[in-house]
């Protein structure tokens, strides 16, 4: 389709805006690493609307750009590990079938946190971060569910857009 590049640009812009909105929400609950992951909403929608290759590209572009604009070199590494693991898990579950968008989004949220945790383990060379596992799993479950509900609502309104 000839509008592919334009849609890709729009999705990238949307993901960046969500990353920005996320930085505006003060959301400190005393546990590092727990956040809503609004930008993942765009990734979930892209998963359903674009080819897998393009979704991966979108994920990487989004992480690198938002890392340069809002974060630092560290946040890029963490987001990349989390984002790629999360997308891989979502793609596999979707291919396997039987899961609703909520389940897929939950898997994405949880795997995002696991990816970041494993990276943290490697960077600080300690296993003690493993004690965050319960909190991060539940946090990923809740945020994944919320993102899934939002993505479902958006997809219902995006039926006319076909890439």
């Amino acid at each position: 389709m000839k509008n592919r590049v334009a849609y890709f640009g729009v999705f990238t812009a949307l993901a960046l805006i969500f990353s920005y909105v996320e930085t505006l929400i003060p959301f400190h609950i005393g546990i590092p690493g727990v956040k809503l992951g609004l930008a993942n909403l765009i990734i979930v929608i892209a998963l359903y609307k674009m080819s897998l290759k393009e979704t991966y590209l979108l994920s990487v572009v989004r992480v690198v750009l938002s890392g340069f604009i809002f974060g630092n070199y560290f946040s890029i590494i963490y987001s990349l590990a989390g984002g790629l693991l999360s997308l891989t898990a979502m793609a596999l579950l979707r291919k396997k079938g039987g899961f609703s968008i909520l389940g897929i989004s939950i898997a994405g949220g949880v795997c995002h946190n696991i990816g970041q945790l494993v990276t943290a383990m490697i960077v600080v060379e300690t296993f003690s971060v493993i004690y965050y596992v319960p909190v991060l799993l539940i946090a990923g479950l809740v945020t994944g569910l919320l993102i899934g509900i939002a993505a479902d609502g958006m997809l219902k309104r995006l039926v006319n857009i076909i890439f």
Partner: protein
Amino acid sequence: MKLKKKDWILILIIVCVAGGAFLLHQVVGGKGANCVTVKVNGEIEGTYSLSEDREVSINGGTNVLQIKNGKASMVSADCPDQLCVHQKAVSMNHENIICLPNKVVVEVESSEESEFDAVTN
């Protein structure tokens, strides 16, 4: 939009793993915590008792740890995100405060257990 059967199974697995990990933490850790170990870049910089109040400068001053009333908290860090400063004070065994940019890990331990670890390692 309703959750399908496989969605529920997925949720159940996640909750079970989280619950199991939490219980394991409660059984393994929990009591007997009396000191904090400060690691920078994976190497131990120092061990400080939780029973005496003090402030510790870590990693040549990039982070400052405060020990007060048996709890340890990070009071300052030179990194931009300040996640470790926002984190609540730690006092339970194996709880920790981590400053990723400076690679600083502060972990609560019991002094007997660290000897045990040293032997098993």
